[in-house]
């Protein structure tokens, strides 16, 4: 049993337990020390991830490859930065509890397990380890009715989709006789026709995964949960967990079910097109910026799924390039959302950003960069993200999808630009409170990345290429 392979996860799990104890025992508020310890654990785990060798462990349940390393680094970075944002927000909102960083840690651990899964069972294990803390986090502001509602909705729908997925997994197991990814790939990659039961199973698994990445038509929870849950939690939802969800769907569809690409391609194409269109149009009418970001994510999901649907090496590489770029843009945008606070109260309407261009030029500039980037305006990073998924789609002849992508990106540019317009062109209704240093740090880091990605795209491209090579094999 090659358990040292899973050192990053083990380190994270053990530090999680230790931090939990460290949070309970002293009779004073341990939020700050716990947060710092969790950040330390992320850092340590990240170091182990970078030095992780290739290989398989736990009887073929766990795999370590370039793809896993790539995604894990992103997840850890996203979780760490989102936690940094949450620190100030939770304190200001009276939600300072040491459990919060621990929940983030366990959710992140779940994602890492999910990313390294080489078996349907470890995939499901990771997925649930991710989901359970998320349900709690969504309802973390428990005295707030909206937050409780968000938690409940997320839990009920999430449980339903998990159930569907589990059902699909059992069907796949029943008809294919194995849950191991490598063996599944062998069974499905052969010349024999794929059993119909497996196809039905794959459909249910895709349903569950689509729920996790919030692809249309399983997107409905996203706006409600984003709006209801505390902003600090949403910052985590919208960044790190999206990376995890993308990793899972890519790992499953390109890995074991890669041989059955004809069976699921049409489904993903449909989901992609529907997500892009709905995300673009539904976001327009939003006044709440968190809901706006939810629909914005749905639209981005469409782009991610586009790369996946193409299924070629270039398409998957596009997905892997999209993910970090989206992560950075989204973290940056949420750093602004977290800083939206006037007279000590959190505000979350787009109109509350009015006049930010004058009252806080640096933050407004950052937000403008993120909005332009999300709209895909060159030379910002978002443009390249869209380009790298659009080109393979065009090359592989997915014309409808490519055209919808461009059109929806035009439509979505509208609402991104509306935020910029509100910041720079509308009269201010009073300055926001001074932004905490954590926000400034995240804002500056992600802003620089988004702005100057085009100068140095090579390292990321190389890493993505390696990861894809490991995935396709």
């Amino acid at each position, binding site marked *: 049993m090659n358990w040292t392979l899973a050192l990053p996860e083990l380190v994270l799990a053990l530090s999680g337990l230790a931090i939990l104890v460290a949070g309970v025992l002293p009779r004073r508020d341990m939020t700050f020390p716990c947060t710092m310890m969790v950040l330390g654990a992320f850092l340590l785990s990240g170091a182990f991830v970078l030095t992780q060798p290739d290989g398989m462990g736990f009887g073929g349940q766990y795999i370590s490859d370039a793809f896993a390393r790539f995604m894990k680094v992103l997840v850890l970075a996203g979780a760490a930065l989102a936690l940094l944002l949450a620190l100030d927000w939770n304190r200001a909102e009276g939600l300072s509890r040491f459990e919060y960083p621990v929940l983030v840690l366990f959710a992140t651990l779940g994602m890492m397990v999910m990313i390294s899964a080489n078996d349907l069972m470890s995939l499901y294990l990771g997925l649930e380890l991710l989901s359970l803390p998320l349900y709690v986090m969504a309802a973390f502001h428990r005295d707030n009715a909206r937050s409780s509602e968000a938690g*409940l*909705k997320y839990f*009920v*729908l999430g449980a*339903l*989709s998990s159930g*569907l997925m589990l*059902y699909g997994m059992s*069907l796949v197991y*029943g*008809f294919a*006789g194995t849950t191991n990814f490598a063996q599944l790939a062998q069974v499905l990659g052969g010349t024999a026709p794929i059993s*119909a*039961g497996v*196809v*039905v199973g*794959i*459909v*249910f698994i*895709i*349903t569950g995964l689509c*729920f996790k990445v919030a692809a249309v*038509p*399983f997107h*409905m*929870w996203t*706006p*409600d949960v984003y709006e209801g849950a505390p902003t600090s939690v949403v910052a985590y939802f919208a960044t790190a967990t999206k990376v995890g969800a993308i990793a899972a769907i890519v790992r499953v569809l390109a890995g074991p079910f890669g041989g059955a690409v004809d069976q699921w391609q049409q*489904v993903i194409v449909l989901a992609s097109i529907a997500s892009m269109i*709905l995300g673009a*149009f*539904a*976001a*327009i*009418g939003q006044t709440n910026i968190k809901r706006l970001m939810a629909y914005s994510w749905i639209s981005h999901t469409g782009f991610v799924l586009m790369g996946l649907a193409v299924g070629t090496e270039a398409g998957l590489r596009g997905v892997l390039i999209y993910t970090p770029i989206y992560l950075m843009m989204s973290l940056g945008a949420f750093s602004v959302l977290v800083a939206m606070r006037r007279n000590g109260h959190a505000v979350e309407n787009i109109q509350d950003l009015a006049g930010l261009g004058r009252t806080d030029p640096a933050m407004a500039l950052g937000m403008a960069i993120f909005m332009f980037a999300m709209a895909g*305006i*060159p*030379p910002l990073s978002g443009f*390249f993200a869209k380009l*790298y998924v*659009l*080109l393979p789609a*065009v*090359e592989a002849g997915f014309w409808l999808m490519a*055209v919808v992508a*461009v059109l929806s*990106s*035009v439509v979505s*540019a*509208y*609402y991104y*630009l*509306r935020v910029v*317009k509100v910041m*720079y*062109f509308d009269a201010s209704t009073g300055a926001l409170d001074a932004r905490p240093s954590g926000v400034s740090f995240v804002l500056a880091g992600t802003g620089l990345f988004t702005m100057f990605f085009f100068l140095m*795209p090579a390292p990321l*491209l190389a890493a993505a*290429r390696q990861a894809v090579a490991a995935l396709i094999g």
Partner: protein
Amino acid sequence: MSDSLLLLSLVALPFLGALAASLLATHARNAAAYLAGGVALAGLALVWTAYPTISQGGVLRAEFAWVPQLGLNFVLRMDGLAWLFAGMVTGIGALVVVYARYYMSTEDPVPRFFAFLLAFMGAMCGLVLSGNLIQLAFFWEMTSLFSFLLIGYWHHTQAARDGARIALTVTATGGLCLFAGLLLIGHIVGSHDLDVVLASGDAIRNHPLYLPALVLVLLGALTKSAQFPFHFWLPHAMAAPTPVSAYLHSATLVKVGLFLMVRLWPVMAGTDAWFWIVGTAGLITLLVGAYVAIFQHDLKGLLAYSTISHLGLITLLLGLNSHLALVAAIFHILNHATFKASLFMAAGIIDHESGTRDIRRLSGLNRTMPFTGRLALVAAAAMAGVPLLNGFISKEMFFEEALSADGLLVLPLVAMLASAFSVTYSLRFIHGTFFGPDPQDLPRQPHEPPAWMRFPVEILVLGCIFVGVLPAATVGPFLDLAARSVLGEATPYYSLAVWHGVNLPLVMSMIALGGGVVLYMALQKHLRSGIEGPPLIRRLEGRRIFERALVFLSWRLARRLEGVLGTRRLQQQLRMVLLLALAAGGFAAWHRGVGPGNLVPQGVDPVIALVWVVGAACALGAAWQAKFHRFAAIMLLGGAGLVVCITFVWFSAPDLALTQLLVEVVTTVLLVLGLRWLPKRMDKPGATGVEVVTISRRLRDLAIAIAAGLGMAALAFAVMTRTPPDLLAQHFLARAYTEGGGTNVVNVILVDFRAFDTLGEIFVLGAVALTVFALLRRFRPAPESVEVPEQQRDQSARDAERPDRRDGDTVADWLLVPSVLTRLLFPVICILAVHLLLRGHDQPGGGFAAGLVASIAIILQYMIGGAAWTEEKLRVLPLRWMGTGLLLAGGVGLASLFFGMPFLTTYFAYADLPWIGRVPTASALLFDIGVFALVVGATVLMLIALAHQSVRGHRAERRAETAPRALVPGED
């Protein structure tokens, strides 16, 4: 200087200048102006150094690695056309910088202005020098962006913000279309390199995707060059400072669309589609722009519409698919840039010195600013096409082309009409501003501007005159270079001369000149009346339609879509997920044809079928009652569960059945206990509103549930009628006795084969129990559920009524017979538990089942006797039970290490016990006892946590009586 260095510095220099300018202090006016002027002049010098190569017909080219993974290189390429445009951008740029230095007010943050201006210049240079399509689109969007920033420079005014917004929306949208179009072209050609693209004209024109590509590219070009129906952004962009208008909206930005059409002319033009789209857009723009320009009262508005009209003229020329027309188009691009920039500057000077741009208020300025007046007069004459000025020559060429276009009489007529209009508005510009009586109450006393402010206008006007008099000697070679770089060998013969003899174009020119003057005289009265907007098409205002369309698209449509497609209700979302999953799974199964497998199903025994009918009825009843009678629903759920147990027994799985039965009992009890704290549901079906809606809604849900259930059943059927793959079951069955020493395979799996999993599970169970306890310990019931239940209240009320009974008597006598029975049963159940525990390894039973049985015994006592009574008589210490269980289970596992075996290995043997005889024993039994203890402890712990709620409820009630709202935190 090497080509790459030259080209790169031509693009990079303005950006570096912009960066430097943005770092200057806000009041550093002169420094910023010198910097910007220096950069522009340096750019012009660079362009000039390229002339020797270009004039030989050479092409400068430089390539840098950009995104090598995509085969994308950063290519800079300068041929005659690019050279001409680069010269125009840098040359007019330098003049505009000089002008802006004097134009901008001291209060404005001038360095920012110059930074934007330089960045725009850099984007323009990058655009015209682009040697690859992607890069072209990139710089294209960049020009849109900087034009947005420049238009919105005075962002404190509403007009500037609106103008900038509209311009960006229109041009950036066009830019995205262009990007798509260029990608299509790249797809057709197989390369994004401009040289390759330009060499594959036939491939593009004959490709099935030619039309979409053409439409997309033209959408980009026509929006940028303000062609009808996208022209409306340009007049609103006039809110920009005048140097910006002079630079962007006459000379450079709006020419970019034309530049692109010229650039792609060899590969895209020559088809009917091109002729109709480009020609029609140009024709309408030419006429409408000129017509509207006449009726503008704002000097800049007039110039804006005249610009639109002239751009339309050039577009029309490009659309004619004739080589000569292309030459004329390039020529007119140059001429228009020269005279329109000078006119904008003149308008700016007038505005600057007199404080207004309204023609209705201005008049007679010739007396106070004579020199400016003469300059403007010459420039306006060039715009009107008066002979001996540059506008005349290109207009003659236009007339000639209009006449030679095959058989269309409409073209020369429209050309003449538009030309007459242009004479009219030029006259209006000059006559209305500089002639007539002295102006009344102007905001400022007009006077001549500083000499340096006039200097750029002088240069440009001189250009108009020189080109107009000596066209071949001045602009001829440059024009030839540009035309040759586009057309190559196909460049036609043309003559640049002032006098071609008396021919039809000349006659047309004269008619237009005369007609324009007559029209101006005729319109005097109307124009004096000062009505806003042109007659006839006043209501056809592009901006209003645009805004209304935007509001519809951006708000109403989106809201409606969201309302139709989205919902915030959990029930509906659940319904959606279920239906979709059902549809997806159903479709996949139907599409692929999942049918019954190879195994023949056995016949159904009527008895089990009957049992199942009962079960199904229970399930249906539970679903039906769930909304209004939770208690009944739970009971019915228990019934359905029992049927499952019976089924397990029927199919010879007694162990499973036993476990299922006990789990069923415990969960039902826990659910009932939890139910106590849910708020009571007051509304009954039919009590309020129409019942039909409720019933139909529930019937629909029932249908969904039945469909989902049938789907699941069908899939289960499909799986079960197939030969199962080689699963683990065979392995366990074969080895249960030989290796585990037990005949109850399930138990052997639990305590031996998979003992490690079981150990983990009981740890989890313990943790869950502790968590439930910890959570419920601090639980405070909701205020509405604190009070004593209805039944107990009734009983107390009856006690109070009767004189012979005291309050609480009935409650104390509650369920006397059952309580006696359960107390009698307690030892019996306990013995049953021990029995199940001991025989578990070989027969149905085991630690888990036994633990549940024992907890049921305790639960019954709690339920019937009440928490207080039971705890008085029976001390259960759940934590000790749990601890013992865990230690025992773990210890047994560790003990095997002591014997040198792997963790949790089982030893089994037969023991001869006195009186009982030979009895199989296994070390696994000890492990099972651990499981038993933990299950008892955990279940009882949760039970106690729940049971104490009732105690706490009474306490809270008593407290509430003494002190209202005393639901204070803090554990009792």
